[in-house]
């Protein structure tokens, strides 16, 4: 019916006619939902980053040339390309240490800006015969054998449809692209150690001076260790220290623990921020609703005088608040998404921690929860005031603000 009116329609009319008041309330719920949604996605991304980091790390102990622990961590955690070498014999020595189960070596190389990439690329050569770290997760995306001249690339590396990438003027075939991890792994290029060493030669021919003074046949960058069952990491680390000089020992555990530590600091910061904006916006919502509901005492009195029950009057206010809450909730989520998703990489880079967006269904759950909260908080606040007014004498509320 064209001209029809109902209490539900009254709620909509009220929102429209009091657009300034409604906009203020919608803005406050939008802020609440923006921080709620954004904060949750940020926290979940950090958690997922840490999780993917520790599953990919794979080794109990990593040994690198002395003084290069920071660089090694940079390679793994933040994708900061780096290279450093020590003698191949370290690997054999480490294999003999008591408590060491498996050893494998890797060879690092760095390309400056090639025509492929906007970022410098880290090459990691592994030994297919002994490797127990890289291949398990390469196998998730690539089942064939990794041949010479084929490479496996991290998720952030761009390549064209031809499937061929050129480094130092040599062509390599992209065999597989790895899943995203939110860590430095995403800008790595993996290949057989032989392939990487051929790259090394190509680089040398092109006149990259950095390769001149080392004997690449006998050089490696890192040794990854898996300890035997029944040994604890600290004992094995001690054994290595006793037997081998001039190496830097990095515990996989320590690395993840360090990240977890940083993450906790960040998490607390985020939670406090979330709590403060939550309290702030709820306080503002309480104040605004208390003003707006109180200034409508006469309106409620009139509604009651024509026969509305307490429940009907309260439901007018609740419906308004739900509409306001859902609108604010959606706006907040949209704005939050406009920051979170397009600037995903930038955010990941600036937090300096493994950062990986959760699966889309997790995001959908967060969206639904945020919407529920934004749809529920305003009506709870508003109905408190409305119930209070609906309890007072109708005649007296009608005479108010005359």
């Amino acid at each position, binding site marked *: 019916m064209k001209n029809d009116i109902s*209490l539900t329609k*009254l709620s909509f009319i009220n929102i429209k006619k009091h657009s300034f008041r409604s906009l203020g309330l919608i803005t406050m719920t939008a802020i609440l939902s923006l921080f709620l949604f954004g904060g949750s996605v940020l926290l979940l991304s950090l958690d997922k980053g840490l999780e993917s980091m520790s599953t990919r790390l794979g080794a109990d102990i990593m040994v690198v040339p002395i003084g290069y622990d920071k660089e090694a961590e940079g390679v793994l955690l933040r994708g900061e390309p780096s290279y450093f070498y020590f003698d191949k014999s370290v690997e054999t020595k480490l294999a003999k240490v008591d408590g060491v189960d498996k050893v494998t070596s890797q060879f690092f190389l760095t390309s400056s800006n090639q025509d492929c990439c906007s970022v410098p690329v880290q090459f990691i050569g592994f030994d297919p015969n002994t490797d127990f770290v890289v291949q398990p997760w390469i196998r998730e995306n690539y089942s064939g054998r990794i041949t010479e001249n084929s490479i496996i690339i991290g998720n952030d590396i761009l390549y064209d449809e031809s499937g061929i990438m050129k480094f130092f003027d040599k062509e390599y075939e992209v065999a597989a692209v790895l899943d995203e991890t939110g860590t430095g792994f995403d800008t790595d290029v993996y290949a057989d150690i032989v392939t990487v060493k051929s790259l090394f030669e190509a680089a040398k021919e092109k006149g990259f001076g950095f390769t001149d003074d080392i004997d690449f046949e006998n050089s490696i960058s890192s040794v990854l260790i898996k300890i035997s069952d029944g040994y604890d990491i600290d004992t094995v680390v001690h054994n290595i220290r006793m037997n081998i000089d001039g190496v830097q020992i990095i515990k996989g555990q320590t690395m993840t623990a360090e990240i977890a530590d940083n993450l906790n600091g960040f998490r607390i910061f985020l939670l406090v921020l979330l709590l403060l904006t939550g309290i702030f916006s709820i306080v503002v919502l309480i104040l605004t609703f208390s003003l707006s509901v109180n200034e409508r005492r006469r309106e409620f009195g009139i509604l009651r*005088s024509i026969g*509305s029950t307490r429940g*009907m009057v309260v439901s007018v206010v609740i419906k308004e608040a739900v509409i306001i809450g859902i609108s604010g909730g959606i706006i907040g989520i949209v704005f939050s998404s406009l920051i979170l998703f397009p600037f995903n990489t930038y955010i990941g880079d600036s937090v300096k921690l493994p950062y990986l967006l959760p699966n889309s269904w997790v995001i959908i759950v967060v969206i639904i929860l945020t919407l529920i909260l934004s749809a529920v908080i305003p009506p709870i606040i508003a109905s408190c005031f409305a119930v209070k007014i609906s309890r007072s004498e109708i005649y007296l509320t009608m005479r108010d603000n005359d």
Partner: protein
Amino acid sequence: MLIEVNHLTREYRRGKNNVQAVDNIHFTADKGDFVIIKGESGSGKSTFLSMLAGLLHPTSGSVFIIGKNIYELSDKELSCFRNSHIGYIPQGHELLSELTVYENVVLPQRLYRKTYSDINDNADKLLKKLKIGELRNSYPCELSGGERKRAAIARAIVNYPDVILADEPTNDLDGNNTAIVLEAFSEIAKSGTVVIMITHDDHISSYGSRIMTMENGKLV
């Protein structure tokens, strides 16, 4: 009796004192009565009328309307009762400013009835009768005081109540409009509805079938 009031008393607290706004009133009215209540300002007329409308709990005493002790009803029962049996026209601003005149007038019909087919569109007829038919789509802020008052009257009678309680309905009206309203009330009263009207105006007493005066909370 359609209305029966026993020992009706209402006190207000003002600072440390109690004000006896309505003081032990006995009152009855029956079908077809057009009661006009006069009295000085502050004598308790509005307080009395709002208690008849079920809008203000008495300090003591009872109000029976069509045999129901209205202050013993639950909120739901009393609200529904008010909606279908009582038409109340308050003193002062009385319309919802967000709604048009028409929407204001039909709102009481929309509160309880699920289907509207049983409602013949009497709202427009009432508006025409009260000479504000062309204002149906205007908002209260666009109306004069008298036009607003007439819209409130239309809203009060739209559900064919048994009792109409009007608090100084002719206050803002000129002679011509006052006549329109009073004619309407007389007609409604003749159809069997009790009309109780408060007024300051001595000239209009002639319309009433009973004239009463309020003095210090007592009806004489």
